[in-house]
């Protein structure tokens, strides 16, 4: 079983790596979104490996089901150029600065992760959905209420922003 978990981890890591490379480098935005979907599914598999099936389900429901559809709407509602939206290559200076940002952040965070190992339990703990529900209604009730307010406000704000005024003003 231990070997199976390692093989599955490797496969999911490869999916995540390939998907994120496609999402960052694709010339066409629809292809970039397909890469994003592959990455999200890989992360959902990692949640399954971490013994949190509920999070994997929510990842697929919320990200693949809702956020990616929103991104697809954003692509379709804006004017799409013929040869791909990102066809003209970025200036060399911009690419160099992006690489510099990645290198600095990656080296600092990677050094921190690799040199300061935390004590781990090795096997992921099991959390039942019942405990999650009790947590939402008990100690974390305020955060639960606040996120519903945030969602309502963002929905109302989106409608207000995109409202087409008919009579000029």
């Amino acid at each position, binding site marked *: 079983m231990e070997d199976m978990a390692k093989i599955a981890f490797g496969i999911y890591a490869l999916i995540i*790596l390939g998907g*994120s490379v496609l*999402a960052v480098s694709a010339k066409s935005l629809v292809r970039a979104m397909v890469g994003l979907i592959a990455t999200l599914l890989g992360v959902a598999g990692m949640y399954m490996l971490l013994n949190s099936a509920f999070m994997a389900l929510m990842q697929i429901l919320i*990200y693949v089901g809702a956020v990616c559809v929103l991104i697809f709407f954003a692509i379709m509602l804006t004017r799409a150029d013929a040869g791909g939206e990102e066809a003209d290559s970025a200036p060399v200076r911009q690419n160099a600065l992006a690489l510099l940002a990645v290198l600095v*952040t990656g080296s600092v965070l990677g050094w921190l992760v690799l040199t300061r190992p935390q004590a*781990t339990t090795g096997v992921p703990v099991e959390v039942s959905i019942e405990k999650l529900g009790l947590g939402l209604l008990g100690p*974390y009730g305020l955060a639960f209420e606040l996120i519903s307010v945030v969602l309502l406000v*963002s929905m109302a704000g*989106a409608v207000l922003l995109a409202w087409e005024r008919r009579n000029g003003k």
Partner: protein
Amino acid sequence: MSPLVLYQLVALILLLAGLFGITQRKTLVGMLICVELMLNGAGLSIVAAAQLTPANAVLGQLGTLFVMGLAAAEATLVLAIIVVIARRFGSTKTSVVSTLKG
């Protein structure tokens, strides 16, 4: 390497891919895709840290759930902003939307 370090490295890869994309992309939708990548890395890191250490696992999973909710709210607002910008400027390229640039 312990499993936790491996999961954190995958999360770091997601963060770096998003960071590279958001500095290098030329359209607003491409930048939105990269923001989602970074948020996913954060969620994976939180869940791995909560599940593989003696920390409070319920708090970790619920925190990631809240990150997902905030990402959905953010994507909704960004979609509306992109629609407004596309209507006003006729394009969502960051080189066109530069009225405030000195």
